[in-house]
């Protein structure tokens, strides 16, 4: 199907069209937008994790020179059609409605929750005033551990809910009980898995302007999902769709949290409408630590049964998931963790009880990987445990359990939320593992390890396999129009936060129409340009928007051919489209450019259009993928542990990655590299900690450590291309995949390095202090024997 793309456009690492502006500092991010008369907002936030607000004294703040307004929930409520922000993703699992408020009404449910909005002539003055707001509140006991919060007698995280169990479900298939009774061996393990925040280097930001002349609200929002933001604003503010436009300007990284609609995204537009002036709010880094959603803690109590050869028979257990104080994004996290556990393996029976607990912490919602790294971690750790018990090599136990290529497409027994079997569409998992092991020289490692150990160095190697469901629907929109000037204008509901979305789409459209990338203008992330759209989540935009633009561009090409046939008085099959011109085959001078055809199709007063065609050289497509396309990969990493400090250094990192056909391999590698390093951070460095009262212990990058250039290894990436049968281009998503295998592979390498001590890695992150404690405990066990 992709055969009519010009060679050189698909699978080619063309330079990005985004780069020049960004390299010159000429991007336009939310904080770069300045509007006449604009006020600057700062938020008064809850200083405690749980309390009842008795009163708020705004008088000193309102009296400060330069302050225009200090607004509470009561002030904004007349602008709103509903109390809570209508956000809930539908889920039968959810037991209570815990959608957030745009400003806290009475009960404060996490430290950082917004209580009041100050609008002032400068951000500095707004922050001064925010500090002058006096809060009188009655402190309440806080729930900071989901599992403890689910025990009887635990305090309530929200007084408006009967208990803390916000959602529960059982994911099960097969006869787990029978399998455990029949199994030869059993591995039991408890995992406590933390994963941190998105930490885009640009924090969130919103600029809102209500234009009374046009009766129109325009919001520039650093969001991954402008169409969803618009829908929430329409519903919340009681405006009609034509009165709301949301634009995602240049966005400095997303990684999940910017897909979630946060309270400030409603409070700022509501304030702009109330005050009748533009209002800007730019998040500072402390706010991004305390008030931006991120992932947090899952506790898993798990058991695996296998036969004597190490073949998996069943996995069962329980997952306790920390959900935070409200529900801005449904239950996607725990669900992804639970389903992704199965991974690229044949698992005959599975029984997982999932309990999702409210806590007095900022809501938990997806960051890159979206719960999948945790499920993968559990499966990969259990496999290592079985291998250890049976004395089988770690690569061999995986080989015995991997789904074979002949089994593709492989329908797992899991039924997904769209009611269909979770089905892996294509891939060769054993070959992927084989290539990774070969590239990393796995079989020769024991020699390197022994040599290092004789020098007192503790080296280990680890590996992991994983899958990622990508390209989630239901659709993405695209429209391609050739303007009479010859400019190709592409509009789409897709949004960009650095992925190279414009380049990817321009490459595809250019490939179909035979025009250079600089003639193609992509308009993404603007609800006024595309009436429908979904945006960036679930590694989906190459699959959904990529196929949509190709389908639309092919319709444009077909129409161009028909128009040219009429104008040149030849049959359409005698025409070729290349280099932006439709030419008569074999007669070099006889041609019409796309611009000529677009001019003809825009019409001349009183004359018929060529070939009785519909007006305009344009077409649209909303591509709906039939199912999820599964990307897969294998990571192999070598680690060196300093047993005197617990520090881990990664020496060598190999990834074999299969995301189907690649549009731009350079950009695919960029996605994988960024994902792997995010995974390294989550494994070794990043830890969002709170004390027992729910106070955040991290508020700067001195407390919360992101991976830096000097601590990450060179990462070697190899590609396989198993085309997806689910879309015309045969592509799969690549944005999150790199994150998914990292923790599992690194943990396995650390265990391998410390094998003589018998250290077992079950908790993340593996910080030096934590690993040092594990090493010390193992040494004491050894010495006391």
């Amino acid at each position, binding site marked *: 199907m992709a055969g009519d793309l010009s060679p050189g456009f698909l699978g080619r690492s063309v330079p990005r069209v985004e780069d020049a502006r960004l390299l010159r500092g*000429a*991007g336009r991010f939310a904080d770069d937008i300045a509007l006449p008369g604009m006020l600057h907002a700062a938020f008064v936030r809850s200083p405690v994790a749980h309390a009842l607000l008795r009163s708020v004294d705004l008088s000193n703040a309102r009296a400060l020179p330069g302050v225009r307004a200090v607004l509470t929930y009561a002030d904004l409520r007349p602008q709103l059609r509903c109390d809570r922000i209508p956000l809930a993703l539908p889920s039968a699992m959810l037991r209570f409605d815990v959608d957030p408020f745009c400003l806290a009404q009475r009960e404060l449910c996490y430290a950082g929750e917004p209580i009041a909005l100050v609008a002032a002539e400068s951000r500095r003055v707004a922050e001064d005033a925010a500090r002058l707001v006096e809060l009188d509140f009655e402190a309440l006991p806080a729930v900071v551990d989901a599992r403890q919060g689910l025990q009887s007698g635990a305090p309530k995280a929200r007084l408006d809910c009967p208990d803390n169990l916000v959602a529960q479900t059982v994911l099960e298939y097969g006869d787990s009980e029978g399998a455990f009774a029949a199994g030869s061996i059993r591995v039991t393990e408890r995992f406590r898995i933390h994963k941190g925040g998105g930490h885009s*280097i640009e924090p969130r930001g919103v600029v809102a302007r209500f234009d009374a002349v046009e009766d129109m609200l325009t919001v520039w929002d650093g969001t991954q999902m402008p169409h969803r933001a618009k829908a929430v604003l329409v519903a919340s503010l009681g405006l009609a769709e034509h009165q709301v436009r949301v634009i995602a300007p240049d966005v400095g990284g997303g990684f999940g949290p910017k897909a979630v609609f946060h309270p400030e995204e409603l409070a700022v537009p509501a304030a702009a409408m109330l005050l009748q002036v533009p209002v800007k709010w730019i998040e500072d880094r402390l706010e991004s630590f305390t008030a931006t959603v991120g992932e947090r803690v899952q506790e898993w109590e798990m058991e695996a049964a296998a036969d004597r050869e190490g073949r998996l028979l069943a996995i069962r257990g329980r997952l306790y998931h920390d959900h935070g104080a409200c529900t801005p994004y449904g239950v996607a996290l725990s669900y992804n963790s639970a389903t992704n556990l199965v991974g690229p393996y044949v698992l005959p029976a599975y029984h997982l009880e999932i309990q999702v607990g409210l806590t007095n912490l900022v809501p938990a919602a997806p960051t890159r990987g979206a719960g999948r790294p945790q499920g993968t971690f559990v499966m990969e750790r259990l496999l290592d445990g079985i291998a250890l018990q049976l004395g089988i090599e770690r690569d061999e136990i995986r080989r015995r359990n991997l789904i074979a290529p002949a089994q593709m497409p492989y329908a797992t027994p899991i039924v997904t939320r769209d009611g269909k079997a979770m089905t892996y569409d294509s891939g060769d998992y054993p070959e992927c593992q084989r290539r990774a092991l070969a590239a990393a020289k796995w079989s020769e490692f024991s020699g390197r390890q022994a040599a290092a150990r004789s020098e007192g160095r503790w080296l280990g190697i680890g590996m992991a396999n994983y899958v990622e469901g990508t390209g989630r629907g239901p659709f993405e929109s695209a429209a391609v129009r050739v303007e009479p000037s010859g400019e190709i204008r592409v509009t789409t509901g897709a949004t960009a936060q650095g992925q190279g979305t414009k380049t990817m789409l321009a490459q595809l459209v250019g490939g179909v129409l035979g025009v250079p990338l600089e003639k193609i203008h992509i308009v993404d992330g603007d609800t006024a340009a595309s009436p429908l759209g979904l945006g960036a989540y679930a590694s989906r935009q190459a699959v959904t928007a990529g196929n949509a633009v190709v389908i639309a561009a092919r319709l444009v090409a077909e129409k161009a051919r028909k128009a040219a046939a009429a104008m040149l008085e030849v049959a359409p099959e005698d025409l070729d489209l290349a280099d932006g011109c439709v030419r008569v085959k074999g007669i070099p001078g006889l041609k019409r450019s796309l611009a000529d055809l677009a001019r003809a199709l825009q019409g001349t007063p009183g004359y018929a259009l060529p070939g009785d065609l519909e007006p305009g050289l344009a077409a649209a497509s909303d591509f709906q993928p039939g199912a999820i396309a599964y990307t897969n990969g294998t990571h192999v990493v070598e680690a060196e542990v300093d047993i005197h400090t617990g520090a881990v250094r990664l020496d060598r990192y190999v990834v074999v990655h299969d995301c189907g056909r690649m549009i731009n391999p350079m950009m695919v590698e960029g996605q994988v590299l960024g994902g792997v390093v995010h995974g390294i951070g989550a494994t070794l460095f990043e830890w969002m900690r709170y004390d027992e009262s729910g106070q955040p212990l991290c508020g700067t990058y*001195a407390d919360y450590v992101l991976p830096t250039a*000097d601590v990450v290894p060179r990462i070697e990436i190899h590609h396989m291309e198993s085309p997806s049968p689910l879309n015309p281009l045969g592509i799969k998503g690549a944005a999150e995949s790199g994150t998914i295998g990292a923790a599992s592979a690194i943990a396995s390498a650390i265990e391998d390095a410390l094998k003589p001590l018998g250290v077992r890695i079950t908790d993340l992150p593996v910080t030096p202090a934590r690993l040092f404690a594990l090493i010390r405990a193992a040494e004491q066990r050894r010495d006391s024997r």
Partner: protein
Amino acid sequence: MSSHQVAVTVNGRLYRRTVDARVNLADFLRHEIGLTGTHVGCEHGICGACTVLVDGFTARACLMLAVQADGRTVQTIEGVAQADGPLHPIQAALSAHHGLQCGYCTPGVVMTLIELQCENAGATLTEAEIRRALSGNLCRCTGYQGMIDAALAVLGGAQERGETS
């Protein structure tokens, strides 16, 4: 709040402004004189997105007050290449090696590498030296490898490494 007159040369042009003592250099550049290419990521001196050159040396514009820049010469990302001219070799290499994605940390990365180039004029840098030099610039998109390859291409001489695949 005390106000102060400052005269700062930015990208070759002298700017005179009256500013509050507490206005930092990043806010001064971005909001007082409208050069928004310098980005603010953490406001506590760690992420490096706001890195500019002051009298030729890198400085965190979020940790320096505008009044401290009085009488000094500042170079920002807008001054690296002419608006209508070709990119600086470091900028061009960052594009060629996919050393940027969202572009938010990029101005700080460029300024750090320009200082590195000036400090090591003619010398050949190793990958480890470049990694150390870039360790003060946080990037969440790229995993750093593309920007390190870009720096190696310009500063690494014979030790340049090719594509990773």
